[in-house]
């Protein structure tokens, strides 16, 4: 296998990336095409070697029963890998990339498709800014997509 994530290897790498992303984001339905695009974006940045490391580790633990816990300990828990974990989540949630960890406010977006497909907005019961939230007046009510786990009044 080549040093970088070549297109030839992309097939299974993509599936690993998607499986990992589901665990990291906590969102089940992640689009494969988006995953391909985010993988592409990551592999052309300094995150690439860290991502490769993460995917290698993930591949080894994929069949483990306690997969989520192992991801937490051995990938998230690793200081050198955590920024990349964060970047993966940030991409899925908002389509934004942090090029420089020292300037967290400075972000870079990809395509409009990616921006409007961000899954993080639903997590907070909202929508990607710029996309219609729904019918006139819907902001008067609690959101439809308010997560179940939230306890009333908490």
């Amino acid at each position, binding site marked *: 296998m080549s040093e970088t994530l070549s297109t030839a290897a992309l097939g299974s790498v993509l599936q690993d990336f998607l499986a990992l992303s589901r665990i990291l984001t906590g969102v089940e*339905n992640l*689009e494969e095409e988006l995953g391909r695009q985010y993988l592409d974006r990551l592999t052309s940045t300094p995150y690439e070697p860290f991502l490769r490391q993460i995917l290698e580790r993930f591949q080894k633990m994929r069949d483990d029963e306690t997969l989520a816990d192992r991801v937490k300990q051995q990938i998230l828990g690793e200081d050198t890998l955590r920024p990349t974990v964060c970047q993966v989540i940030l991409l899925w949630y908002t389509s934004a990339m942090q090029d420089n960890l020292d300037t967290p406010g400075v972000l870079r977006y990809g*395509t*409009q*498709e990616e*921006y*409007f*497909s961000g899954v993080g907005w*639903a997590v907070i019961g909202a929508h990607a800014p710029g*996309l*219609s939230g*729904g*019918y*006139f*007046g*819907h902001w008067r*009510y*609690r*959101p*439809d*997509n*308010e997560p*179940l786990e939230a306890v*009333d009044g908490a």
Partner: protein
Amino acid sequence: MKPSRTVDTRTDLLKLLCEAAELEHGIACSYLYAAFSLKRDMAEGGMTWEEQQKVRRWAAQIYFVASQEMLHLALVWNLTTAIGGTPYYFRPNFPQNSKYYPIKVPIELEPFGPRSLRRFILYEHPQNIAQESALKSLLRSAVEDGEEIEFGSVGELYGLIESGFRSIDEKELFIGSPTQQMTKDLVHFPGLLPVLDRTSAIQAIHEITEQGEGTAKDREDSHYGAFVAILKELLDSRERGSGFSPARPAMQNPSARLERGYGADANPIGEPLAQQVAGLFDSVYSLMLRMLAWSFEFDSVGVEEQLKKFCSVTIDLMPRVLLPLGEGLMLMPAGEKYPGKTAGPGFGLTRHVMLPPSAENARQLCRERIKELAALAADLVQRSVPEPVKGACRHLGEIARNF
């Protein structure tokens, strides 16, 4: 346009108002069904990001028009109680026989598309439209079946109603109690006018027709204008690109269960979980209707605050429970009999318990019923239903707890 006959008795006028109530109600359901069917996310397929912007805007506009139809129903109810009648909330189940109303265009539950938009335009079209031939050609380009387009609109019905209010003696006619009238202070319908006399009755009727068909000077802000614009945009988008598919493949005229009251031509949902969700929809919808109609009949003198609270629960059920249930149903499979199709709400009005006149007892019955439905919802939430359905069930639970 002069009305086709005279309306000079209360009975006649009340019957026409019942017909108007049925129509506004049925049309609102038809609009809601189309709005529910519009996709929200690109992940659903068939939309670029630019198309998604358009589709979301169309959905918002159709919801808006539906909300005005509900306002029209509310105004019709005020007109009804003002002359001594009772708010009428019944309507035939879907699909409705096209000969049932003079409007000649059947009211159906059908997903968004050129066919449904064509129907919507015909429901709302103005009585004397200068560009009739232009309209006909737009409508023809909307469908390929070469079906002959016959007019006969809701506007004519209101023309008759207005003539009734004008010709029958005012003092004899307005026998309803003014404190029965609902206003926007009591129930959240911005634009709701109380009907107390001939002048306010005619004002209410004009509000309905102006919102629906517009005026000669201003068509584009009417429902008619909005649908024409959307249809044009849709046909334009289709011409430009292939693969644009704005609507979920929802079935037509679904029914939650094949029971008395559902039309024989309705399509029963085959998939059990979807059927259950559709059943919950019907139950909440039916309860909400009863509560609303009851509020409009109730004489609120001295108990306005309680009525306000009761109404706010009722109104809340629409955006927080019915809307997400309806949208969610269109993400669920319809059943083996309907390959490639998703389910949908049937808006089934079947046998139900009517609410008693006593406020205390009505509240008690509603409270109990909402709690029963919330318990059903709490069970559904555990199953593999789409997110909007879960949200609806959660909201129903919260409403039940706070009632």
